[in-house]
């Protein structure tokens, strides 16, 4: 005689990094956010307060890599503590939903005696008891290989395409990648909309600093759409925009998945030659939207919600790689 597993339900847990996203995902699944939250003590240690049973449930922890100098590592610890707490509370399966994966750029040993921190994060998440990770537009998809657990790397591409179709007149479009690494992303978009693409090659002297840029391709009289996976200090985007206009582009729009906007990025954007910048709400955007009128936001909670629904029901997630969910 074998025991049939009882059907269980989805629990959406919100970390402190992005509660709005957790709310939105829960709403897209017609659920409530669970009564489990992270608190901080006066000695700056974090702890998880569990106010609801999650025994034998499928738990999805919504947390993203954000918070800047002050909070980024706090949120990271929160994620680990929350995973650990869910395991301690006998959850059947713990999935970390981390749209913007922290430390994704420290993914290789580019200098002597540095850590491959992305790998360390993978180890820490697994050690804490995570059994599945959902993320979006990983900076390097090889990071999936750092994990010994399944990682679903979702793409913002379908929803970005939808956005472009809805808002831009795409007869005269040109996709531009601000660095060689993003060429594949741009080529894929250009193919889907049957347009052309260009590349900017940059020589980077130091992290977060851009030195020299070379444009490959003709952008004269085109509406250029700069595509990147993340916008951090926005130095690259602003310089690329200047370069494109200089080379005869009509106007320049930037679409990025993760708007980190650290330092004085918002100032730079406001003063830049970019017509507008579009990013997803993989990080909390409300404070930026107030400061930057050029910023518009694409909501990704339906994609994440649908991925969670499919994962829970054992359906294929790959449908989401090519179809937009609204």
């Amino acid at each position, binding site marked *: 005689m074998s025991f049939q597993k009882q*059907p269980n*339900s989805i629990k959406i847990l919100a970390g*402190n990094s992005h*509660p*709005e996203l957790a*709310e*939105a995902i829960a709403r897209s699944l017609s659920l*409530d956010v*669970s*009564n489990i939250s992270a*608190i*901080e*003590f*006066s*000695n*700056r*240690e*974090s*702890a*998880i*307060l*569990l*106010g*609801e*049973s999650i025994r034998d*449930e499928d738990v999805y922890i919504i947390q993203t890599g954000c*918070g*800047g*100098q002050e909070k*980024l*590592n*706090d949120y*990271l610890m929160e994620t*680990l*503590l929350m995973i*650990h707490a869910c395991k*301690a509370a006998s959850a059947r399966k713990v999935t970390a939903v981390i749209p913007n994966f922290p430390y994704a*750029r420290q993914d290789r*040993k580019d200098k*002597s*005696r*540095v*850590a491959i*921190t992305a790998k*360390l994060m993978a*180890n*820490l998440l*697994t*050690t*804490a008891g995570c059994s599945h990770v959902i993320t979006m537009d990983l900076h390097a998809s090889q990071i999936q290989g750092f994990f010994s657990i399944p990682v679903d790397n979702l793409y913002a591409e379908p929803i970005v395409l939808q956005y472009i179709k809805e808002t831009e007149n795409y007869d005269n479009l040109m996709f531009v990648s601000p660095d060689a690494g993003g060429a594949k992303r741009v080529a894929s978009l250009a193919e889907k909309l049957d347009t052309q693409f260009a590349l900017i090659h940059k020589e980077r002297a130091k992290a977060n600093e851009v030195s020299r840029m070379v444009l490959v391709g003709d952008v004269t009289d085109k509406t250029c759409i700069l595509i990147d996976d993340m916008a*951090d200090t926005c130095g690259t985007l602003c310089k690329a925009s200047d370069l494109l206009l200089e080379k005869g582009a009509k106007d320049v729009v930037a679409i990025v998945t993760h708007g*980190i906007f*650290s330092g004085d990025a918002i100032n730079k954007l406001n003063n830049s030659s970019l017509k507008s910048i579009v990013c997803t709400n993989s990080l909390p*955007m*409300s404070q930026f939207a107030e400061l930057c009128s050029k910023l*518009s*936001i694409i*909501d990704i909670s*339906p994609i994440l919600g649908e991925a969670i629904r499919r994962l829970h029901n054992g359906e294929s997630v790959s449908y989401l790689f090519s179809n937009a969910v*609204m």
Partner: protein
Amino acid sequence: MRDIIVFSGSSNSALADRICNNLGLPKGKVELRKFANGETSVQFGDSVRDKDVYIVQSGSGHVNDNLIQLTIMISACKISSARRISVVCPLFFYSRQAESPSSKRGTPSLSGVNNPKNINLLDSVPPSPRSLSRNGSKPISSDPQPKELLNSLKSASNILSPSPSYRPTSSKLSQLPGLAHVQPRSLPTNNSGVTSSANYRSWIAQSGTLIANMLTSAGANQIITMDLHDPQFQGFFDIPVDNLYSKPLIQHYIVNYIPDYKDTVIVSPDAGGAKRATAIADALGLSFALIHKERRQKIVVDPNSSMPLSSDGITLNQNSSTPSINNPQPMKHSSSTTSINNGFPASGTVTPSSVPHLEKYVGTTMLVGDVQDKVCVLIDDLVDTSNTITRAAKLLKDQGCKYVYALITHGIFSGDAIKKLKNSAIDKIIVTNTVDQDAHVAEIGSDMMVILDVSRILSEAIRRINNGESVSMIYDHGW
């Protein structure tokens, strides 16, 4: 010293300097910084290949930053072919959470809580007959602090309204703002296996195993720590943990710096620290007293008088912030836990919440032992918000003690602890430098705070471990 290199994290580099000094080594070069987006970055400037690496990092300051930095440092050493990685962590990370009483924790600071459902959570749960859960956490609702938290939360509860800049991409999403304040207790729509949380006793998850596993998984081979708050913490690790003691240092201070130390009384501010304090009292042949906190005291307020009475008719000396009771009935081992205020009814005011006929559970403290006209030495391993120790000092002074020393191993002093200590009945604070104390000394004044240096114990332990000698000898002798 062969093949040894000592690095310092950013939490306590002064201590690392002292350790290196004692060992006669230059401190290892390491570049610790953060990227613009807040991600920590570590790069070692000295080769660690085939070396015995020691990383000094204390669990103080911005704890999570320091912990993540430590794991990154360990990992970087590991992939740079270090032979053995030892973590020197005088104050261990999250060492306190392994123990459960919420009264001993720090106050939850509001910054971390922005989920409006906490309102239900903190407010909820009628106290049901309490069974000792595996986690043993205290009911949140019985603690006065979350009540304050609750009130502040209510005022801050509208922060979740979605930003108007969210692009409504479908009809469902366009209803967003209207749904923002849905009652959290609305019926869940998925009906399989949903249990109501009304009868769920909320609890705080313990993190000990996680911290241990994080360090092990990053690549640490050995942990050196000091005065672990919870000795069971050692059991969370699969790697060796050397728990050193500051006891020799503290004894040395008592013997050499406290005048007429033979007449002093060693006092433990709570029952949990009794063992630590008695060990010192025994070693020095001193008398011992204990302050006991109890939460079970039942109070009945007499409707006819405004005097709060305990169930057996004892008057209370109650102040609004820290209700305390001095039990006039002599304890078995003591003749001096005498009644308060010369036998007059307590002059303490009735707190607004003490409604007539309402039975209430309050925290009470009592002293077991004689401190009349004595010099008292409070011994505690860890002081965070300093509530316990300042309350203890006040009780000691109330009981006729002349002078109060507080000997503390780990002085975290978070929140306004320093201010509280400055205004407290404590006359002198002696604390070790497991946590960097420079800022604290500057604030409280060097005449009131004395720093004991633990670097010699730590460096001797490092030397012995590096040489493969026994470490247990320094448990008793210090160095």
